[in-house]
């Protein structure tokens, strides 16, 4: 009987958490039209976007280079190294760009968001805003949510572009694939809507999920040092799992058998 009661309790707890998370989301999204929030959002874009730029660009470069190296060794056996361009471009645009960016973003910016909001809660800054008759959801949470939503798709596009350049670096400059065929076969294979835009749509969905988890975990954290460290870990774990799971669902919808 005990385990049944525990199952019921944990289910109820989950539902309650979903309810609180929706409340946080709704409370922050209603704050859209406030002009005062624009400078705050720009400031947060600096924190979550610009400061993640270096790790995103470096990772993108290396992933593109590795893709080219791996792809070349396989393709060259079939004399098909001309297809290196589309192989690198498609795998980065469709999968690696959105997914790796989202995972890095969760680790770099998501955890920081959780810790920051959690600490503001622990040091009573959120309570203090409440007592000043200022809604912390609008002032603190909303700019961070918007900054995350805007920044991650931008980072994804940059990641993909840098990755393809990295593929060029290894494939063309180092392994000697013909530059003309690298780019022209890529161009004839990659489609703007089906490949580039679908990747961007994926990253918008991931941005939403990762940022939502990050701000909710911070806002809902237990305001102690253990509570915040647990919340930070949960942000990274939950958002990574959510990204990988959603990636499968989105891929099935976008590129699945018609």
């Amino acid at each position, binding site marked *: 009987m005990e385990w049944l009661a525990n199952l019921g309790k944990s289910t109820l707890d989950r539902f309650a958490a979903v309810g609180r998370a929706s409340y946080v989301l709704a409370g922050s999204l209603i704050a859209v039209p406030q002009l005062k929030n624009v400078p705050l959002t720009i400031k947060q874009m600096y924190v979550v976007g610009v400061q993640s730029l270096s790790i995103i660009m470096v990772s993108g470069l290396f992933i593109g280079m590795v893709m080219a190296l791996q792809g070349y060794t396989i393709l060259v056996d079939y004399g098909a190294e001309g297809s290196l361009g589309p192989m690198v471009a498609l795998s980065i645009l469709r999968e690696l760009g959105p997914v790796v960016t989202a995972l890095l973003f969760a680790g770099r910016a998501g955890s920081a968001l959780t810790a920051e909001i959690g600490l503001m809660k622990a*040091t009573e800054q959120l309570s203090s805003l409440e007592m*000043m008759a*200022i809604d912390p959801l609008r002032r603190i949470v909303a700019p961070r949510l918007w900054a995350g939503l805007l920044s991650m798709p931008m980072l994804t596009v940059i990641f993909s572009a840098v990755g393809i350049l990295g593929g060029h670096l290894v494939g063309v400059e180092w392994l000697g694939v013909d530059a003309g065929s690298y780019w022209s076969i890529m161009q004839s294979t990659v489609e703007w809507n089906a490949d580039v835009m679908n990747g961007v749509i994926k990253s918008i969905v991931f941005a939403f999920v990762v940022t939502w988890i990050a701000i909710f975990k911070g806002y809902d954290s237990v305001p102690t040092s253990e509570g915040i460290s647990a919340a930070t870990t949960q942000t990274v774990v939950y958002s990574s799992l959510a990204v990988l799971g959603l990636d499968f669902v989105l891929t099935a919808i976008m590129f699945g058998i018609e």
Partner: protein
Amino acid sequence: MPNETNIEYHVSITTGNSEFLVKNLIEIESLSFKRGERVIYDNISLQIPAGKTTAVMGPSGIGKTTLLKLIGGQLRPDAGDIKFKQESIPSMSRSRLFKVRRQMSMLFQSGALFTEMSVFDNIAYPLREHTQLSEALIETVVLMKLQAVGLRGASKLMPSELSGGMARRAALARAIALDPELIMYDEPFAGQDPISMGVLVKLIKELNNALNLTSVVVTHDVTEVMSIADYVYILADKRIIGAGTPEQIRQSDSDLVQQFLQGKADGPVPFHYPANTLEQEFMGAN
């Protein structure tokens, strides 16, 4: 509980043998509050007179801060009512509550300064949010408030560069930025050195007199608060165990109140956490 409240918040409080008429800014009526399974308050009533300093004292961990959060409307009572100027706080709409909160302010234990902005911007923050004042005017107001707490020279510093006592003074300047009617102090003396403590006692007293504020001080520092409070409530064990002017409290014949005032290790609040007897513990359970 006297209930002739048709006259604009005039309620008489009976204190010992003297009876006097004061305006009550806040009235708490048979309030009960539970946190999970744990009862924090069981049917307590108290009044905060306007323009006076009221102290709420009690041992640590009995939820004194909770009382302030209840008054500020951040928590809702399970039963009973809290009235601010005769208006019930728990039944206010969110927007009404936000309007009412502009008349109150709270000094948090940690100061709760916003860490990412300078002292100046911290104090300007409520002004920029709630008023349309020009930047020049805001600067004047902020510097005046900082002057009042003696930190005008520290306006450019970041909160991380302030000592604990200075942070609390800066937070106090922020709390009075919008000239509220009510200030709630949450443990203002906790963890302060004697000098900072003296400065804070002086500030609370002076602000109360100069701005005609109503102050609620929640604390367990007996000597400091007895010197500034007009009226004292002592909370323990989910209820009010003593109330009156500091003089009346000192002469109280309640053991619990005397234990608290004199800081005795043992008494009605036992030194030992409830446990088995020593014999049982060491000789085996018999």
